[in-house]
């Protein structure tokens, strides 16, 4: 497969397939994941090749899906659950935060919970309500869960396999508007980076942009635009939201003295709040300005015709950078 150029959607599909080939205990479950291959086709062809016992179309009940996945994990399987859209994870919220997250802890490590919960998340595809949510902060606030977000095909391919191999439950966030946005080359011969590590995706000296999932591209575009104006922005793709991998962040902010966090989730109590608090604690004397946050406003997700107003874009990022320099 080396050299193949694929979309994020395809990369995830290939990663899932690889994980299923490598380990017969890996199961895929969810609504419409079988014949249809999922509404985004991420599981396309898997049922055909691995059978109905391993690629399981489930009744229409998210709590049921996650709850039965808990039981399968207890039986020794590694379920990969698909939540059809971000806004539909909430019926399963109780099972996720009270059962999935706590099983390993309360059993004193006796019962592992190797489950991956895949959630296509974020906006920008012109969808109706409940189809563009960014629920990550709620999961990251829950000890026992790990939360990661991929932003590009190469990461998608590797991270899904790593998440499946992880013995802890992983909330796996897929930026749905990136599914078919860009293609990248997959190279199976290269060893992947670790799953729970952030990555500097563009070097810069004047300020640090922190992003993940769908906003990595926004941040990279902003950095490119800023470069035209002579401002050098460093961009970090956080990749792991819980645990956070702060070392590269601190290193960067200590150098640049400025940080702007960019996410689609509501600013209030979004990841930006935690990043701001930690950076300020650790880099207090290096900061030239407070950490600024660009995110979804603190309103419900608006009708799609104005979602671009709600979502952080290049200009709002650059505006925040300007404000940072205004301090």
């Amino acid at each position, binding site marked *: 497969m080396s050299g193949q150029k694929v979309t994020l959607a395809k990369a995830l599909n290939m990663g899932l397939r690889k994980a299923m080939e490598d380990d017969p205990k890996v199961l895929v479950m969810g609504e419409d994941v*079988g014949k*249809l291959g999922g509404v985004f086709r991420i599981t396309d062809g898997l049922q055909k090749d691995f059978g109905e016992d391993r690629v399981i179309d489930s009744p*229409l*009940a998210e709590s049921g899906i996650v709850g039965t996945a808990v039981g399968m994990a207890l039986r020794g399987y590694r379920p990969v659950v698909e939540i059809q859209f971000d806004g539909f994870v909430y019926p399963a919220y109780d099972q996720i935060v009270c059962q999935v997250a706590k099983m390993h802890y309360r059993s004193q490590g006796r019962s592992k919970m190797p489950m991956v919960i895949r959630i296509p998340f974020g906006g920008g595809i*012109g*969808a*109706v309500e409940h189809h563009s949510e960014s629920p990550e902060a709620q999961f990251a606030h829950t000890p026992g869960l790990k939360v990661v977000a991929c932003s590009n095909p190469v990461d998608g391919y590797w991270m899904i396999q790593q998440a499946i191999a992880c013995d802890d439950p992983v909330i796996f966030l897929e930026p749905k508007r990136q599914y078919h946005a860009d293609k990248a080359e997959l190279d199976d011969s290269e060893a992947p980076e670790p799953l729970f590590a952030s990555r500097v995706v563009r070097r810069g000296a004047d300020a640090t942009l922190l992003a993940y999932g769908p906003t990595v591209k926004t941040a990279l575009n902003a950095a490119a635009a800023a470069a035209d104006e002579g401002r050098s922005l460093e961009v970090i793709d956080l990749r792991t939201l819980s645990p956070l991998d702060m070392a590269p962040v601190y290193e960067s902010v200590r150098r640049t003295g400025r940080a702007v966090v960019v996410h689609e989730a509501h600013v209030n109590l979004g990841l930006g709040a935690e990043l701001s608090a930690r950076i300020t604690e650790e880099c207090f004397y290096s900061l030239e300005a407070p950490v600024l946050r660009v995110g979804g406003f*603190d309103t419900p997700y608006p009708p799609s015709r104005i979602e671009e107003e709600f979502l952080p874009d290049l200009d709002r990022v650059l505006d925040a950078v300007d404000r940072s320099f205004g301090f």
Partner: protein
Amino acid sequence: MTQHPGFGPDLAEVFGPAAQDGGPELIQLLTPEGERVEHHDFRFDPGAGVDEAETIRGFYRDMVLTRRIDTEATALQRHGELGIWAQLLGQEAAQVGAGRALRPQDYVFPTYREHGVAWCRGLDPLKLLGLFRGVDQGSWDPAERNFGLYTIVIGAQTLHAVGYAMGVQRDGAVGTGEPDRDTAVVAHFGDGASSQGDVNEAFIFAASYNAPVVFFCQNNQWAISEPIERQTRIPLYQRALGFGFPGVRVDGNDVLATYAVTQAALQRAREGQGPTLIEAYTYRMGAHTTTDDPTRYRLSEDVERWKLRDPIARVQVYLKRNGLADEAFFAAVAQEADELGVHLREGCKAMPDPAPLSMFDHVYSELTDELTAQRDGYAAYLDTFEVSAGSTTEGAAR
């Protein structure tokens, strides 16, 4: 395999999915061939002093116009005027039968597909398009026509319906015998939705409080790509029995039967006899939504078979064969449909995008200081593009 006495017969075998035509329990008053038939328990009764033929012509008109709403909206989606559309093709009789059985004071909690019920409630169908166009999330006042906003999270509205019905009880609007006062509530949902915890909890609450609610399930055989067999191994209407209230299966492609059964169930509710589950046995002739591709998961033979049971055709045949409607009538309805089409096309295209700052409206009953600051900050930011257009980045072009 040993048989284990004491657990009763294998229900899955007794009722199994074999009954593709709806089985013997299907309540039907008008056959696919357009013949009126008798049913021992239900009969079509448009009400004292009301002309039967006129009522049926009205149903025909409702169904034709409902279908037109659907085809127009589908076309509008294809032309990029709507982001998505949830088609009801094939479910017109279920919706018009259910919608016309309502009294004004009754209240309806729809899913995202109840365009025909909305039509019966007197909503301007243009209002249905806003959500799908992406300019709003429901543009009508639920209280005006007693028709709730569309609900997208599967099953959530069934609990709202039960709670509303409990409010009706507390208002003393049940079992008084006053036709304009006694109130029933309808919860719409699909076959897939029957698997959600919320829907089953709605059954439990409704039974526990004997709430005046009718659970109207359109079993269109599919939840996106999943067939009904994934959700239940016995006929869905029997779910109600486990909760202690009646369930019936009606031919959802038969507008007369659907009307009759719904009317009776609503009347039970209004009289204080509690909840009923109606399974309207029908078929989703189109895709799940305009973004779906059903060829991936179902056979065109099935669709062809169901075409023979078209809900509109059978009424048309019935009206024609019995001389209850003339060509002028059919032409007038067709004409009306065309006008409706124009109304929808023109109205849809003319729908303005919401103002960006409207995003901050109605988060709360009053704008909080926090949100005022966010809105004002954003407004000031937007203003910078006005004055300095083109000065900084490409975004200035917004």
